[in-house]
Every structure is written in structure tokens, then in C-alpha cells.
């Protein structure tokens, strides 16, 4: 346990000293502020373009914005945050293979599964902090300017997208155990998620695919039962655990 914590501390130190933690923090804070900001600025932007639109014979009526517009923006922006997160963290394993830093650590007696667990824990922890920080910023601004209560199942819908991130990270861990290069990890992670998405296009399996969770913003306007997401949530959790679990024997057998 002590060695696992030591390796997690090393991962944390790496995130801090390489500046990744700050850069990703800035991105997620920016996205969190942008959601209400875009909603808030929409009427002003519309007013700006209304004159030129009038010249073309189009009339714009006054636009009313509320918290729902800000939450819509949140679900548009969060994939950008997830992509930035994956791009910046995709070298977490491969950089160690390429530089050979893992050799000394493993020859010190650290079990390989602890490397997988420590890196996974740090990735999941960071993703959770960034994601919910972005959510909290949007929530607070929305509460100041409008009423969050007009959106239904806010927390549940957000949890669904958080789970999408967890699944993508689990894929990234699995492919990091398998592949040697950053590009290969990114390609395979993207490919695996694309496969999940393509499966969701089949009506019969749609409700079972984790890609269904990406449409959780539909819950906000009401009229949709949360229960329809349960199967996709279960599958996402099982797939995430399976990916991380599978990466352990893969890591045990790989050449470092």
C-alpha cells in the first residue's frame, strides 16, 4: 500500500511540476465560465448582428436567455474539455516506456499492477475534480444570473457525462498498457470510443451503449425518464472496470 501511495505521490508531483495540472485547470475553469458567459452575451451578440440582418430583410426578435442556455453550452463544451484532458494525459504511460524511467522503479520491486492503479487513480481523480469544478462554476454563475431550478435532473445528467469521461480514461489506460506510442494510444482510444458510438446507432442496442450517456442533456428539459439511462450506466461502469482490470495482465507481460 505504501509503495502504491508513493507512486501516486510521484504522479501528482509530475502533474504539478510539468504544469499539466495548471494548464488543464485553466482550460476547465475557462469552459466553466464560458458556459454562462456565452448564454449571457447571446442577446448582445444578436443585437450586434441584427442591423446587418435587417438589411438582408431578416428581423430578429428579442432573445430571452436562461439557465437552460448555459447548461446547453455546458454539454457542448465538456467534450472539448475531455479531448484536451485525453490529449494532455495520453503520454502518462508511454513516456515512461520511451524514456525508460519505469525500469528503475520496477527493479526496485514495485509491482506492475500498482503502476496501473496509481496512474488510473490519478487520472480519474483529476478528471473528476476538473469536471465537477467546471460544473460547479457553471452552476454558481447560473444561480447568480438565472434559476437553475428550471433544469430537471441536473446532477444526474452531469453524472452521465462524467461517466463518459471515466470510460474514455479507462480505454486510455488499457491502450497505454498495450501500445508504445502516444499516437497509438490516442488512435486506439478514439477508435474504441468510435466503435461504441457506432453501436449506439443501432436502435436495438442503443440503450445499452455508453454513448447513450452523451445525450443526457435531454433530461434537463424534462419529459425523459432517468431510468432509460440505467442500462448504459451499468455497461459503462462494467466496461471501465474491465478495461482497467485487463490492462493489469497486459502490463505484467509487456516489455519495459
Amino acid at each position: 500500500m505504501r509503495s502504491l501511495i508513493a507512486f501516486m505521490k510521484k504522479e501528482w508531483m509530475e502533474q504539478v511540476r510539468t504544469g499539466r495540472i495548471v494548464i488543464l485547470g485553466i482550460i476547465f475553469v475557462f469552459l466553466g465560465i464560458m458556459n454562462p458567459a456565452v448564454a449571457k452575451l447571446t442577446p448582445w451578440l444578436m443585437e450586434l448582428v441584427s442591423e446587418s440582418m435587417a438589411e438582408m430583410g431578416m428581423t430578429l426578435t428579442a432573445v430571452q436567455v436562461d439557465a437552460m442556455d448555459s447548461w446547453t453550452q455546458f454539454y457542448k463544451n465538456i467534450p472539448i474539455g475531455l479531448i484536451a484532458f485525453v490529449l494532455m494525459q495520453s503520454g502518462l504511460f508511454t513516456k515512461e516506456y520511451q524514456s525508460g524511467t519505469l525500469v528503475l522503479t520496477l527493479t526496485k520491486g514495485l509491482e506492475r499492477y500498482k503502476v496501473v492503479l496509481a496512474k488510473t487513480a490519478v487520472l480519474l481523480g483529476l478528471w473528476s475534480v476538473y469536471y465537477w469544478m467546471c460544473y460547479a462554476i457553471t452552476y454558481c454563475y447560473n444561480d447568480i444570473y438565472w434559476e437553475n431550478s428550471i433544469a430537471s435532473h441536473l446532477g444526474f445528467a452531469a453524472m452521465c457525462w462524467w461517466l463518459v469521461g471515466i470510460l474514455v480514461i479507462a480505454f486510455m489506460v488499457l491502450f497505454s498498457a498495450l501500445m508504445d506510442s502516444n499516437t497509438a494510444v490516442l488512435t486506439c482510444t478514439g477508435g474504441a470510443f468510435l466503435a461504441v458510438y457506432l453501436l449506439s446507432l443501432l436502435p436495438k442496442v442503443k440503450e445499452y451503449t455508453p454513448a447513450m450517456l452523451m445525450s443526457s442533456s435531454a433530461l434537463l428539459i424534462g419529459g425523459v425518464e432517468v431510468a432509460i439511462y440505467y442500462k448504459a450506466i451499468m455497461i459503462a461502469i462494467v466496461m471501465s472496470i474491465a478495461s482497467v482490470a485487463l490492462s493489469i495482465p497486459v502490463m505484467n507481460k509487456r516489455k519495459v
Partner: protein
Amino acid sequence: MEILKIEHLKKRFGDKEVLKGVEMTVPEHSVFGFIGRNGAGKTTTMKTVLGLLKPDEGDIYVAGEKVIYGQTATNRHIGYLPDVPEFYPFMTATEYLNFCGEITGVNKSESRKRSEELLELVGLAGEKHRIQGFSRGMKQRLGIAQALLNRPKLLICDEPTSALDPVGRKEILDILQAVKEQTTVLFSTHILSDVERICSDIAFLNDGVIVEQGTLAEIQGKNRTEEYLLETTREEEAKNLLQVFPNIQELQKNQLSIRGSEETLFKVLKYVADNKIPIHKVEHLEPTLESLFLEVVKG
């Protein structure tokens, strides 16, 4: 008692069979020179001992425990210094050693104390900069410190001096000399003068097998072919001798090497005396490890 035992180790990379049945034992408390040309399979052997490579055949035992690929249990007995050690560049030397201490399960206060001792030993005490700014020699010295942190029974050094300048080489050899009282050192290299300087036991790896193993004195005794230096006063006389005795080799313009028994030397000297060839000197050459290695490899 042996600290390391390798039995019939085979390893193939694609079509190339790198190790063809390595048999080797490293006695405890020895400084063991593992000698072979570049690409002979020294690093492959060492990485297999560390459980980092999977052998195709054969068994390895460290302190009596079997090495299992992918598992690290036997590594608690080992300290490892690769040829080019790579560290986390964002850490300082002290932070790295403390990290290694936590990984190996050394308690915090002992780890700090040991780190200080080792940094002192390798000349990095008080070094506050991050490792990313370290020179190759400094990294090598830190490599030795991390390898010794858990007081290993076996210190494996993979060509620790090959990438260093003469000053760096001397520093590393001095450190290895200093630690040989505390641990068994397995030291792979192709720089034979380094082996002569610090090793008590040696093994020659050639073409994937151990062709010779024993103490330095044993091997020197076993493979000894006498060698004499004959220096003529002029180059022409040396050329004349080369024509008469085909088994003589030219070392320099007027310096000749005579290899073989005393009988061979006497025949040459008789010819020199009979023909009144002026010579400058005759000298018995002590066999170098290099000449032994070449002899063993050739044989």
C-alpha cells in the same frame, strides 16, 4: 554460496538467437566482471535476471529464489544500475532517493538517513537542482546511489562506465570499489581495463554462451600462452625475422611479438645469435585481460 545462478538460459529476438544456453554462477561477496563484445547479450542476460525480459528457456535464481518474468519479488535482493539510467527529471536527487525508499518499503527515517549517506558517497550531497539539469556522470552516480538504497545482496551494473569520460569512469570505479565490501557486484562491460582494476571473478560471454568463467587468476592460469617482446635495433632486421618465423607478429616497426612456449623463444634467440642480429631488448609480456579474452574467444 552463489547469489546468482543462471541455468541454460536461452533468448531469441525474431530470427536471432542472442542467448544460446547461458550457464553462470556468481559467488557471494565477489566483484564479478561479465565480459563480452557489444551485442554479445550481456544486457539481455541482465534484464532477464531482473524479470524485465521473458526467457525462452532456462531458469534464474537470485539468492536461491526463482526469477519469474513480470514479477518483482526477487528484485528486493537486487540493486540495478543500467548503462544509461533514466530518472524522473522533475525530481531532485534527494526526492528521487526518498521515492525509491518508499517504493522498496524502507521506513521514512531510515530512508532519509540512507539517502544522505549515499548522496555523500557518490558526491551529490547538497545537490539541490532537479535531475533534468544533471550531467551523464552525475546521473550515473545517482544511479549507483539508488541501486544501493535498499542494501541489496546483488548490485547489477550494466556497462556503468561505457558512456563516461575518463574522470567520470574513475569516479564510478572508485565508488564500486568502495561498495564491494557491502554487496556482491555483477558488472558487465567491454572495457577490460575496468575489469582488471576491480573484479575478482569473471565470465566471458561469446556468441550467446559463457566460454570461460572463474576467478581472474584461474582464467589467467588456464589460458596462459606466453608472450615475449623482441625489439630489434633496425626495422630491416625485424622484417627479416618475420620472414623466417611466420608465427611471429609485428607490433610496431621494430617490435615483434613471439607467442608460445619458451622453446619458441629459444629458437628465435638462437637464430638471432647465429646471425649476429643486433637487438635492443627481449621482454616477457604479462598477459592482459584483452589478450586472454581474444584468446578465449578465438579458441
